[in-house]
């Protein structure tokens, strides 16, 4: 079946099977930032935005995307550079495999609750697993990023 939707601000179409996931469709369209870690909704690696909300692309049916707006990290390069610099600055990455999914969810957090406390950051990002960082450095980096977004200096 043919699915027409808006990908990173551009109208696109893709031929998909009835049981294809959004993840598979995005990869076929060259969106290689989108990765699959578990395929069981547990790791957050496949996070993209659907109509502005963070969703797990491994489990959203590709066919459901017709007429909707999908955003991947490829469509948020400016923000990705800013957050990436914060992550690098805080030593918050080792292998970096979790980063695309984490970043997409941090962008969702920045939109929904830019003044998030440390506890709120932890709660919002609970579905983004990272096997390397131990999360503390990620939290520091996200605090720094949110400071840039809001212009507010945190204690």
């Amino acid at each position, binding site marked *: 079946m043919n699915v027409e939707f808006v990908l990173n601000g551009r109208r696109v179409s893709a031929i998909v099977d009835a049981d294809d996931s959004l993840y598979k469709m995005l990869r076929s369209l060259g969106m290689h930032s989108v990765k699959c870690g578990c395929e069981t909704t547990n790791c*957050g690696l496949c996070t993209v935005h659907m109509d502005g909300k963070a969703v*797990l692309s*491994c489990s959203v*049916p590709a066919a459901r995307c017709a007429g909707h707006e999908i955003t991947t990290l490829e469509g948020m390069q400016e923000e990705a550079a800013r957050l990436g610099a914060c992550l690098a600055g805080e030593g918050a990455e080792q292998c970096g495999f979790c980063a695309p999914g984490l970043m997409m*969810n941090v962008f*969702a957090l920045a939109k929904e609750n830019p003044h998030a406390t440390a506890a709120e950051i932890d709660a919002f990002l609970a*579905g983004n697993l990272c096997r390397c960082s131990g999360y503390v450095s990620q939290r520091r980096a996200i605090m720094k990023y949110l400071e840039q977004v809001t212009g507010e200096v945190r204690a």
Partner: protein
Amino acid sequence: MAKYKNYVLAQSLEEAYALNAKKSAVIVAGNMWLRMCGLSKQMAIDLSALGLDKIEEKEDAFLIGSMTTLRQMETHGALNAAFGGVFREALAPIVGTQFRNTATVGGSVFSRFGFSDVSALLLALDAQVVLFARGAVKLSDYQQEAWDRDIITHIRIPKGQRAAVQSVRVSATDIPVLVCAASVSDAGLRLVLGARPARAQIVVEHLAPDCGAETFEEIAARTAFGSNLRASEAYRRKIAPVLMMRAAKACREVTQA
């Protein structure tokens, strides 16, 4: 992973119901669970275009569309204000925000998962399940039934109650080892135990909200628990009175607030 031959975006509930009459069809809500089931179906029927993703406040109840996501319920101001923030508390531990942006209340209620925080809370709140063909049935009855081919259109939650949920998890975001949901209304305290690990059930109703610790011990002693990978029967039986006591206390505190 689930296999579908055809994908239909239903244009009406009538269409969805007619298509779902065949055993070779399946309703797709959030697809979070379904996707992992490994089933193979001729047709997937998507309910996402039917406007069933709304939370409506009526005079005496909230009417929640079956495609409403867990995150919508968690963040809905009026719903949380009416029930002392219990949806925020109870749903936040479920996997992650992205997950809850997609998993639906209808998928949770239909599935009758033993581990469901959602079913336990809705049972405590005396919710009704509104089905396309059968109309409204009590969740406490629906919860006991076998899966059928009717479609859940809404969940109805009567107002005038305060509720609280307590759960124990081996690690954050995992499914619970035990859930206790409590509500207080004019009819007294109602307690539900879920993740026993069998389906959630009402273990007591019409109790005085300020009953003593021995009451919770007695309820735990006559409730059926089981063992699974997450916890033993004995462990569940041991922690149940504590969760019931905490949930009842939290309920009283919300009521008095």
